């Protein structure tokens, strides 16, 4: 067990517990202080851990960006769950998505990054923001208590941080993984090898041969439509089913033709 990591996790739990919105006697400032301490400790830990690794120094430039995006991501993720106003939570979620997209770009996963922005920031969160805005009045109005106060902060923090602590302990066991290091060739090379293997026996698909010129998009396409064709099709069917279901739920109960046009008397 890594005690430094455990202490950092506990500190993080304490800070989130203090930051979670409650009615009165708010401890936001203390929580923020503890949170900053936690982040500093975690950053120091990461730097020391990365320093143990051979070859990490090559990616020093990347690591600056990694730290920047990670910091934005952690802070905005905290704000998503701790901000007392729902609309701000949704907006911090957008910021979180952008920071994660930055991290994906550092991992040479441009497609993932852009698709994350399109789907999360561009579609899902817009709908969230839309619904929150419709539900809560615009402008500088205080939010109702039941929207502002966490119902069960202690239990929530305990469960989530025990899970997080376990995952972190497992991740940092033994030799550090290479996810901090800059290895552009890694995923691309693996994908290309897979593409070669798959395309070898299929002349119909062999036209776009995986070559070193092939980019992330092409490799992704080749992999999706050869090795992962069945899961892809299943996902498509699932989406179609949910689409049809949504249409069925949203469909208005059309009144019969004769009933149309009998407007109700006003009650007053």
């Amino acid at each position, binding site marked *: 067990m890594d005690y430094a990591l455990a202490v950092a996790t506990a500190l993080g739990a304490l800070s989130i517990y203090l930051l979670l919105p409650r009615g009165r006697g708010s401890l936001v400032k203390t929580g923020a202080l503890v949170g900053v301490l936690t982040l500093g400790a975690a950053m120091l830990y990461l730097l020391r851990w990365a320093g143990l690794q051979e070859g990490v120094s090559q990616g020093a430039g990347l690591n600056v960006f990694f730290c920047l995006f990670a910091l934005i991501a952690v802070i905005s993720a905290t704000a998503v769950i701790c901000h007392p106003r729902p*609309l701000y939570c949704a*907006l911090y979620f*957008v910021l979180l998505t952008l920071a994660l997209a930055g991290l994906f770009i550092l991992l040479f996963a*441009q*497609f993932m990054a*852009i*698709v994350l*922005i*399109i789907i999360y*920031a*561009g*579609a899902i969160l*817009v*709908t969230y*923001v*839309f619904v929150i*805005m*419709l539900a809560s009045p*615009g*402008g*500088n*109005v205080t939010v109702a208590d039941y929207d502002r106060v966490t119902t069960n902060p202690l239990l929530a923090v305990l469960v989530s941080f025990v899970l997080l602590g376990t995952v972190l302990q497992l991740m940092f066991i033994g030799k550090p993984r290479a996810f901090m290091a800059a290895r552009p060739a890694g995923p691309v090379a693996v994908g290309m090898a897979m593409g070669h293997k798959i395309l070898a026996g299929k002349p*119909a698909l062999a*036209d*776009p041969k995986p070559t070193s010129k092939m*980019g*992330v*998009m092409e490799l992704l396409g080749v992999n999706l439509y050869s090795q992962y064709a069945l899961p892809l099709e299943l996902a498509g069917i699932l989406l179609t089913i949910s689409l049809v279901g949504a249409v069925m739920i949203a469909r208005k109960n059309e009144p019969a033709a004769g009933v*149309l*046009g*009998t*407007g109700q*008397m*006003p009650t007053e």
Partner: protein
Amino acid sequence: MVGTFIFHLIFGLVLFNVLLGIVAYLILLERKTAAWIQDRIGPNRVGPKGLMQPLADGVKFILKEEFMPANADRWLFYLAPIVIITPALCGFAVIPWGGVLAAGTRLPEWLPWIGGWAFPHNVPVMLANPQVGVLVVIAIAGLSIYGVVLAGWASGSKYSFLGGMRAAAQMISYEIPLILSLLSVAVVAGTMRLGTIAQDQVGYFSTVFVLPQWNIFIQPLAFILFVTCIFAEANRTPFDLAECESELVGGYHTEYSSMKFAMFFLAEYSAMITGAAVAVALFLGGWHLPWLDKLLYGGAQPMSTGWAGMFLKLVVFGAKVILFLFFYMWVRWTLPRFRFDQLMNLAWRSLIPLSLGTFLMAGIFVYLRQEGIIEHRGWLLLGNILLVLGALVVGRWLPSTPTNQRVPVAGSRYNKWPGVSSTGNA
């Protein structure tokens, strides 16, 4: 590597400032266009022929009072103009303005700091040509919703709020056909790089039938869908329900004044330029100078050219963009505004099925081309025509659009509830 970076830095700075200048003059062009169409003269007082009008407008914006409603959400009220202008200016980065520069010119030695520095060979005249270029355009279109929605909500005014909500609903709806029409172009080109797609269109249908091989002639339906959707995304007439003056005062920017309002204006025109540039790059042949390139180059226009070729490409691309922008304005001052239910019906009942059909056609074409059954891209034109004819036939059998029914209302003067007098006191 460093050379490419410096070139892009200089190019980016020049581009950014030129575009901001163009935005200022676009507003003048918009007012002049409106005047021509409405048989007026338009602004003609400031400078010769009114050419200094943008300057006067800018000074006026700066001198106006900054106003914040008492009911506004302070932070979001300040944040909204920033959020709307940032994605609007980001889109310029992936536009292929001028092919590839293959000059390798050395700068003269007497220049300070950069003297003797040679331009790198084969540097693309665009800020970035990422593998996911088309998706970047889509992502930026998706992010541009937030500014409008936030402005509407943060103002704490009912007009602004309704404008923001309308904008959100409209932009979400029109994003789907936008994405599908863009993807049907990308699928046929086999890449998502905007520069490559633009280069791909340089050429002709055949040596006899010299129609340029632009995507507008190959997939006209996708082009029409795309143009409709970028009009809606830019919130311009006939889709400007978000700011429609007769119902909502000014819509989402009702409460904004001074430079914060100018930011909304700037964002709208920047988004127009980005939309026009994407349309030119993807559908109108990019920098391809039709027919004349045979005289100049003795064949198709090459991708990499020297300085003269680059400037020719920049001029051709810019001219196409300006013509397209004029088309934007022409439409704005000609067509009346939709009603909101018509707007939604247009998107969900016609544009989305049609764009799905276009995408399907593109997929079938790519499959047949890969199987070696058809070779020429002109077949896709036939596919598009068939799709339109098929839609016209199928449309006759579809249930009609639910129109507004006359509902008798008690107390109504024109549509009485039977047995109730017009005063409502039966």
